[in-house]
């Protein structure tokens, strides 16, 4: 009896030792993670930067400072790959060189990723609870973005000139379109093969948005399959064949009545549902066509990663942002 127990213990000890040695050896398999120089840090007030520094910089900057337990394999492998991926998407140490509006656009996206619970990555938060953004911190970020940009006299004059030339360009665009809208255009499919659907403009409106973050306005339209799904309350998942179009225009300067109208046409985007065909992009075929010449967006099929990353926080709503207006028939 005693002999058996002793030999069992010995086996266990050996197993433990082998695991421990294996574990220590794995520690030597270390992908490199360096901190390149900070070339152009985000331009924002110190209180805004401080929040991002605390919650986001470990992944989204060139100032990564991992606590010791993140340096232990396998956690180290996961964190390293997250940091590399995160820097590719957004690097607060380098976006300071972008125009102010673009930096703000990143901050709007940042606030949204926080609000939707997508950032900091939930997996990271579980291990680093101190990185959570508190409601008070979130309010600081939101208030900074809501405050109107204070333009100096020169900047205001430049903005007025830009608005005037945008308005005459939009007039010319309208005149051309209204005389040619009956003529079918030859529009190329997207790089991922998703075809343009000219009939989108005859679909039903399911919502609209006033985007003050980038001074655009949008109409969101749905094809018959989408409208039927709304009427019947089957919108998660959306049935195959559902197609959404989102049309974006620049907002004009207010007219005599104080109304802001649709200015220059920016783009039309499509999301076509086919759970099998588009399985690799969350069941949706994405496409975006820019300008009145409807030029497919992107350089190659990689453009659709932009779409899926930003729609990812809506995964539990079948990747759809729009809340359709009720009462469809």
């Amino acid at each position, binding site marked *: 009896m005693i002999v058996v127990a002793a030999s069992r213990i010995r086996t266990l000890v050996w197993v433990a030792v082998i695991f421990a040695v294996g574990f220590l050896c794995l520690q030597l398999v270390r992908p490199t993670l360096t901190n390149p120089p900070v070339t152009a840090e985000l331009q924002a007030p110190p209180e805004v930067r401080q929040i991002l520094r605390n919650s986001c910089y470990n992944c989204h900057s060139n100032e990564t400072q991992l606590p010791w337990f*993140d340096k232990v394999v396998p956690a180290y492998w996961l964190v390293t790959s997250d940091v590399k991926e995160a820097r590719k998407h957004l690097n607060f140490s380098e976006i300071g060189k972008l125009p102010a509006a673009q930096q703000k656009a990143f901050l709007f996206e940042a606030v*949204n990723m926080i*609000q939707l619970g997508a950032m900091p990555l939930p997996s990271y938060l579980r291990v680093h609870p101190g990185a959570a953004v508190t409601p008070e911190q979130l309010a600081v970020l939101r208030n900074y973005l809501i405050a109107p940009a204070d333009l100096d006299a020169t900047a205001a004059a430049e903005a007025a000139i830009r608005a005037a030339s945008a308005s005459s360009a939009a007039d010319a665009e309208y005149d051309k379109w209204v005389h040619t809208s009956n003529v079918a255009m030859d529009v190329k499919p997207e790089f991922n093969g998703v075809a343009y659907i000219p009939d989108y403009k005859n679909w039903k409106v399911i919502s609209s*948005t006033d985007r003050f973050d980038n001074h655009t306005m949008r109409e969101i339209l749905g094809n018959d399959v989408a409208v039927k799904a709304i009427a019947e309350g089957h919108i998660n998942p959306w049935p195959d064949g559902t197609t959404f179009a989102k049309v974006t225009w620049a907002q004009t300067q207010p007219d005599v009545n104080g109304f802001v109208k649709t200015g220059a046409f920016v783009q039309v985007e499509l999301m076509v549902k086919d759970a099998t065909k588009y399985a690799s992009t969350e069941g949706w075929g994405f496409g975006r066509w820019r300008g009145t010449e409807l030029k497919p967006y992107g350089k190659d099929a990689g453009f659709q990663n932009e779409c899926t990353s930003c729609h990812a926080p809506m995964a539990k709503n079948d990747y759809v942002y729009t809340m359709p207006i009720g009462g469809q028939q």
Partner: protein
Amino acid sequence: MRVANVFLLGVVVAVGVVGCSDKTNPRVATKLNQDAMLVGDLPANPLQGRVITSWIDKRNATMSTMFGNDVAVQNARTKAVVPYPVGAVLSVVTWGQQEDARWFGGNIPKGVKAVEFVTVTAPGAYSYERFEGLPLKKVASGEGGDPADRAGYLMSVRAAVMP
């Protein structure tokens, strides 16, 4: 002993990082925008028509979408007849605005403030109806041909470019 501890920690961290346990964020939960529904006795449902254009009243925080029947939409997009041929029906829904819970930086429709209809009844003549309230009730109607009034204004609003 230390080695074993570090080992355990590595495992715990790995499980923590890989594991999943998320509840659905309320902003993401599937729902319709019931606030913005058209409720009441309307001669027609504007949302059954096709879109012509939209606008935003920043001062009053409202957003409007103009729809049309086939005659109106066809004309708005080609401007064969100015302003609109007989049989054209324009309808305008004006909503209040609410922050898009799913996208800070965007406003979306809230409760309906007004629904308006303009019907071209004869060359140069039209009827105008306006509905307000919850449920929507007719608050104004009229006939006329004065392009300076509200109906005339609505007929002068140009279509949004939709290539």
